[in-house]
């Protein structure tokens, strides 16, 4: 009866393949397609990162950062890859890792800072996600201390 095993696995495999092909294209939720993390570099600077999964991209001009209670100055966004958009003109996109410096307007040594990060991106399969506002809270190191650890939105009790 051992010969039944391969037959059985074959039938199961066929059933499985049928199931996958009839479902919508497998898309990552935006939090996984564009993974946000951030750390305090020093008492005056937050570093935000997006890890963009393969096959996905973010728009540079739709990325916005703000902090509280100490407000942020303008974020320093790295140059993206130029892309011509028929409606919006020349835009830039990010793939892979995006590292953004968010300078604070004054020192926040030892304080809790909440970072608000807005982003919007798409998948190469031809689908875009709505603008995604996220936030995370981190503790800024004392003046002269090492950079803080990376924090992700989920790890601080943030729920969508």
């Amino acid at each position, binding site marked *: *009866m051992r010969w039944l095993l391969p037959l059985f696995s074959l039938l199961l495999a066929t*059933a499985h393949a049928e199931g996958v092909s*009839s479902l919508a294209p497998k*898309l990552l939720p935006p939090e996984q397609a564009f993974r946000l993390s951030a750390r305090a570099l020093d008492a005056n600077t937050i570093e935000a990162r997006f890890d963009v999964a393969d096959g996905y991209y973010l*728009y540079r001009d739709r990325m916005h950062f703000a902090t509280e209670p100490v407000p942020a100055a303008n974020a320093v966004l790295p140059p993206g890859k130029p892309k011509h958009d*028929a*409606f919006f003109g020349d835009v830039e996109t990010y793939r892979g890792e995006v590292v953004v410096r968010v300078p604070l307007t004054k020192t926040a040594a030892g304080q809790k800072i909440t970072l608000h990060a807005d982003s919007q991106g798409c998948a190469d399969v031809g689908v875009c996600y709505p603008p995604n506002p996220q936030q995370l809270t981190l503790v800024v190191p004392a003046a002269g201390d090492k950079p803080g650890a990376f924090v992700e939105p989920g790890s601080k009790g943030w729920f969508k």
Partner: protein
Amino acid sequence: MNGGDATAIGPAPTGQPRRRAVIVGVIAVVALVLGIGVAFLHRNSADAVRDGSAVLKLVLPDTNGRQQALAQWRGKVLVVNFWATWCAPCREEMPEFVAAQARDGAKGVQFVGIAVDDPDKVRAFAKELKLNYPALIGGFGAIELSKTLGNDLAALPFTIVLDRQGRVTHTQLGPLKQAKLDALLGRLL
């Protein structure tokens, strides 16, 4: 394959017929399970027919702020497209919809765009594209509705096709290819 070790395990003299019965039984059960599974998957697939009454109950403002009830197009083959100007793949497929509206409108097709966007941007893009079907502004409620119709991630474009009886006959996440659209409309008109 059917070696001596297997025979040694079973009750030796009556082994063969009983084994055959067991095999037939196992195959029957496997077939039944597969059949139920496939039927279940088909029920949940994009082409399963679902009740579209929630779609026809939507009332949304157009770009001039006037409230438009989707129920006014009851009885037509209704193609409801969720889109936004910030969604390039959405904008890229819309000329196809404009052409289909011009070609099949008289036969009873009505396209309706629900933009998850600012009215100003929608108005500007509609003008540029010479949009020949209504562009409504969809808020939170419209996005939630698209989620109940299978668009869990609220991604765009998302298109649903309702037949003249108001049944959802197709849902599409991502671009709706011209050939697929033509086939869908051909079947419903």
